[in-house]
C-alpha cells in the first residue's frame, strides 16, 4: 500500500507471532497494543517484537482491527460518521466462529487493546444470552456439579432476578 518514499517517513514495526510469522505494522497500529507501547516508546522494538501468546491467524485479525480503527480515526471524517463506520466494522468483525472469538478476546487481553477487549467480551456475553442452561453448559464446557438441594438454593437466591 505504501510506496518506498512513504515508508522512510512512517515508522514501522515488526511483530512476530507465536508460530514465527512476522507482520509489518505502522506506528499508528502498533501503539494500540498497550503491551508493547513501552518497547516502542523506549525504542527497544528492534529488530522485531515477539508476541508469544498470539498465533499468526489471530494476530492478522488483530492488526486488521487496529488498522481500520487507526485509519478511521485519522481519516478526517466527522466524529459521528467515524463512529457509525466503526460500529458497522465492529459488527462485521465480530461475525466469526466462537473459537476465534475466544482467541481474539484472549489476545486482546494479553495485548492490552481495551476497545477490542470490550468488544469481544460484549460479543461473548451476547452468546450467553438467549441460551438455555444446558446449552450454556455445553458452550463453556462446564458440568452440572450441583446436588438437587444445592440447585434449589441457587434458584432461590436468584429468584428475584428470574422475574
Amino acid at each position, binding site marked *: 500500500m505504501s510506496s518506498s518514499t512513504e515508508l522512510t517517513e512512517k515508522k514501522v514495526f515488526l511483530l512476530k507471532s*507465536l*508460530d514465527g510469522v512476522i507482520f509489518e505494522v505502522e506506528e499508528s497500529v502498533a501503539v494500540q497494543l498497550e503491551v508493547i507501547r513501552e518497547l516502542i516508546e523506549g525504542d527497544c522494538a528492534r529488530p522485531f517484537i515477539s508476541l*508469544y*501468546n498470539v*498465533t499468526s491467524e489471530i494476530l492478522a485479525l488483530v492488526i486488521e482491527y487496529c488498522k481500520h480503527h487507526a485509519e478511521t480515526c485519522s481519516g478526517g471524517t466527522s466524529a459521528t460518521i467515524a463512529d457509525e463506520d466503526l460500529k458497522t466494522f465492529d459488527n462485521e468483525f465480530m461475525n466469526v466462529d466462537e*473459537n*476465534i472469538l*475466544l*482467541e481474539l*478476546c*484472549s489476545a486482546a*487481553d*494479553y495485548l492490552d487493546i481495551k476497545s477490542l*477487549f470490550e468488544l469481544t*467480551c*460484549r460479543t*461473548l*456475553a*451476547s452468546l*450467553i*444470552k438467549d441460551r*438455555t*442452561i444446558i446449552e*450454556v*453448559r455445553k*458452550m*463453556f*464446557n*462446564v*458440568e*452440572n*456439579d*450441583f446436588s438437587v438441594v*444445592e*440447585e434449589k438454593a*441457587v*434458584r432461590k*437466591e*436468584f429468584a*428475584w*432476578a*428470574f*422475574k
Partner: protein
Amino acid sequence: MEVNCEDSDETVFALSFSDFPEDVQLFILSFLDPSELASFACTSKKCFSLCRDESLWFSMCDRRWGSCTLLKRWGQGKISYKDLYRILSEYENLIGFWRRYRINTTSVNLRMALSCILSGVRFILLGQEFRLQKTDLMK
C-alpha cells in the same frame, strides 16, 4: 491461556471460557442482565460463585446508574452490590426524581430539602433491606 503449538491444527483453538482469568470472566458476565446471570449461576458451582462476586455487581450497578448517583453512598457499604442492584432496579425512578429536581432548582434550600428526602429514602431502603435479610434468616 497459552496456546499449545505442539497440538495439531484442529486443537489449536481449544480455549474455553473457564480458561480465562477470573477478571476476564467477570468482565464478560457484567454485560449480562440479572435474569441471564441467574441462569448462568445455575450451570455449575464455579459459575454460581462467579455470579455472586461483589466486583461484578458493582460494575453492573456502575454501568446502569454510575452516571446519575454516587453508588458507594447507597447503603454505606452495608448492603452488597447484588442487593443494591435489586433495590435500585425496583426504585430507580426515585434517582431520576431527585436528579431532575436537583438540576432544575436554583434554590439552595430546596436542594437541601431534597437531599434530606434522598437521605431518608436511602435510610428507608437500608431498613427494608435489613428486614429482608432478617426474614430470610427466620425462614
